[in-house]
């Protein structure tokens, strides 16, 4: 079957088998290997991407179901060479060790901060509770997300100040 969708702002059309999972479509058909393929059972969350601005586990989502929708992957976080504050936070606060869970963590974190610019620690922990970090580096992941949140709030204040 033919599937038409938008991936990181780019329209794509590909011939796929209907049983193709979104994670394999992204990695094998699009060459976007930033999205990782982990447990395959919707537990680990490293395959999280956005479909229409909402994080979903792409190992449990048919590529066909994404037809006509907008998919955003970890490759879409960086815009024109500028890292997303969440990516920057993961660098600043050592939010990754082996890096395997990182793409899913960052996509979920980005979605959280878009909805809640000032989450407390419990809210962050709840938001990433569908992701597993086998290095158990949760504390630094939480700090990374807090770093991004704080940077974005400062930037927002600066923009408001400039406009005043």
């Amino acid at each position, binding site marked *: 079957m033919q599937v038409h969708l938008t991936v990181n702002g780019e329209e794509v059309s590909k011939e796929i088998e209907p049983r193709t999972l979104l994670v394999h479509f992204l990695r094998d058909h699009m060459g976007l290997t930033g999205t990782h393929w982990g447990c395959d059972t919707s537990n680990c969350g490293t395959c999280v991407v956005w479909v229409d601005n909402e994080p979903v586990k792409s190992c449990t989502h*048919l590529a066909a179901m994404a037809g006509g929708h907008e998919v955003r992957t970890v490759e879409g976080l960086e815009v024109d060479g500028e890292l997303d504050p969440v990516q920057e936070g993961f660098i600043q606060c050592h939010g990754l060790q082996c890096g395997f869970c990182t793409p899913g963590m960052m996509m*979920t974190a980005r979605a959280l901060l878009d909805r809640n610019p000032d989450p407390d620690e419990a809210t962050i922990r709840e938001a990433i509770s569908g992701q597993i970090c086998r290095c158990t580096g949760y504390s630094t992941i939480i700090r990374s997300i807090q770093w991004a949140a704080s940077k974005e709030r400062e930037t927002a204040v600066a923009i408001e100040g400039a406009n005043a």
Partner: protein
Amino acid sequence: MQVPAPFEYERATSVDHAIELLNRLGSEARIIAGGHSLLPMMKLRMAAPEYIIDINDLSDQLEYINISDDEVRIGALTRHQQLLESDELAAIMPIFRDAEKVIADPVVRNKGTLGGSLCQADPSEDLSAVCDALDASCVIKGPDGERVVAMHDFHVGPYETAVADGEMLTEVRIPRRSGSSSAYHKVERRAGDWAVASAGAAVTMDGDVIADGRVGLCAVGPNLTNVEPISQALRGATPSEELYAQVGQIAADNASPNTDTRGTAAYKTHLAKELTVRSLRKAVERATNGGAA
């Protein structure tokens, strides 16, 4: 690598279209909504439908929480996240928020649906216990119109529902009664896991007396949801710790769990008792205080 067996994909443009497709494609066709029950089953080859009918475009028709004076109607495509976040629903039926907080994780809850959860008919599935405690009914639509089946009769057996070939679940209806409230308690091995055991309770108070009460259990039997002897024991009773203990014992006596990696049968039977007690106590407390605190 886990992938489903090959199938043909169709996308429904309306509920009528979905039913037409189901009838044209026959018994090997399955509806997909969130996919978080069906796709894992397909990966494991516990399900191998030849046709998949995607109903995710039908949110206009099937995704809603409508609250009226005498009942709540919830569309089958309503996502877990919406059930969790609805303050209106939490105010009158706090059992939904109690349960949704412990169903899977936030990312899964973005996709998974009420209808999919009920149609999976897994004896460990939380919303089935919730809906049964609330005395819900399921609206099943087919080529000849719709029929309404009590939640208690909806699950025919493990992974088996009253939905026949060519039909689909479209809505869940829950009666509203004044003086009512509800609660849900679950024990899980880790956050977001299937229940080791869980219990939901819904009560309707008439002054200081329980006019009506129901308990739904999950993960402690092949198809045990509502326990009728509990409802009999609660009718007209005055709430007390003795009553809760008595009713908890009925839950334990009616439980028939298996020993598995989630726990021993003895432990799960203990949980059936204790979680019934806690849920009932909380439901009565909420109903008496007139709120969802």
